[in-house]
């Protein structure tokens, strides 16, 4: 069930209120981009998907059911938009002309892209210092010692940040775990 804040946000978004548009964008553009990149190979296509998703959402916001949550609604639009772009690119491309950076992928399943959306959203909830430790560890592949050196902080600080971040992530992703088990 959507909270009062989210209902109000959706209503103001539908009215084109600039603050609401900026809030929606800041909150959801990242997860939308994640879904788009999971479906499309090119960053510019993913950016197009973000823009199109947001615009479609704005156009449809007046009909948004306030008893529902914004995230699943936006996710559904994003996934549909990304698949539409995927199909368009697939139609346009000659198979033997496809390079590694071009669209030649099978779109992720609903469940997988939803997990990607949720992980991205959960990362957005982390404090910046904890988020950076998670990024350096998982994405860059640094050890705690390397992160400590990179950030110029004691290794104990890195470990405690990492511990807090992962516990926080685990809590934020608990509902996804339940849905997928």
């Amino acid at each position: 069930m959507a909270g009062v804040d989210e209902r109000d946000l959706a209503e103001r978004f539908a009215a084109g209120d600039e603050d609401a548009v900026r809030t929606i964008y800041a909150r959801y553009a990242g997860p939308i981009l994640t879904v788009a990149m999971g479906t499309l190979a090119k960053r510019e296509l993913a950016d197009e998907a973000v823009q199109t998703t947001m615009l479609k959402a704005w156009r449809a916001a007046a009909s948004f059911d306030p008893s529902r949550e914004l995230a699943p609604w936006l996710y559904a639009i994003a996934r549909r938009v990304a698949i539409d772009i995927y199909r368009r690119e697939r139609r346009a491309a000659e198979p033997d002309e496809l390079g590694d950076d071009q669209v030649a992928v099978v779109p992720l399943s609903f469940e997988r892209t939803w997990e990607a959306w949720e992980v991205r959203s959960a990362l957005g909830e982390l404090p910046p210092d904890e988020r950076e430790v998670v990024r350096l560890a998982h994405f860059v592949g640094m050890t705690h010692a390397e992160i400590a050196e990179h950030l110029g902080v004691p290794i104990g600080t890195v470990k405690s940040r990492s511990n807090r971040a992962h516990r926080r992530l685990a809590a934020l992703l608990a509902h996804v775990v339940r849905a997928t088990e």
Partner: protein
Amino acid sequence: MRHAFANQMVFDGVLGIDSEFRATGAIGVNEDEFADFLEDGHRGALQGDEPTRDTATRFRDLLADDAVWAEPSPTGVDDLLAAIDAESGVGAATGATTARPARSRPRSRRLMLVAVAAGVVVLAGVAGVLVRSADENDSRTFAVAGTELAPDASAVASVEETGSGVSIELDVSDLPPAEPGTYYQAWVKGPEGLVTVGTFHMRGGDDKVDLWSGVPLDHYPTLTVTLQQEGGGQDSSGQVVLSGDIRG
């Protein structure tokens, strides 16, 4: 994506397991620890089923993928606001009939661009170069400003009623040529909807573009230009590169 998108399933990209990466143990938190964290969070929140190790693996693989770390374009929100600006007060480009109120607080930068462009037009009009009196030959001229998608672009639109329709001559400056597979499309908008008035590509550099409208611009006072993809359908892409209003 961190992993190349070739002809493999996307799972190899977004959720793909990089066994060599994982085998190095370079990561600061191992899989068991992360699974434990997940389990703790799961139990704390749900008091129920226990997650499997597979869940931790999937999440960890996602955390190693650049799809979840990619940042949206820094100008994206301004582009979105420009697109909403362009459609405000009209039904959706897809043909919806519900009228929308104008955005409550237009962006100051865009207004500034329009104001600057309008100022140029006014000065030119004073010099008798661009602006012709409506009394002379029933033509009007107004400024069209580039959006965040084409901040250096601008245009001056000259509008003239003719016996066959409304002639709109767009004198375009610094609008990048549309890349192959894309094109520009001009629209006029008003409370009654959105009507396309022509397409062009600008691949020959700055030039004048002749557009034609079969609807009166008094009812469709906003002129916009969007970047479209060939094969992308007939709707506006929402990627507005130029926008102006005949009412000034």
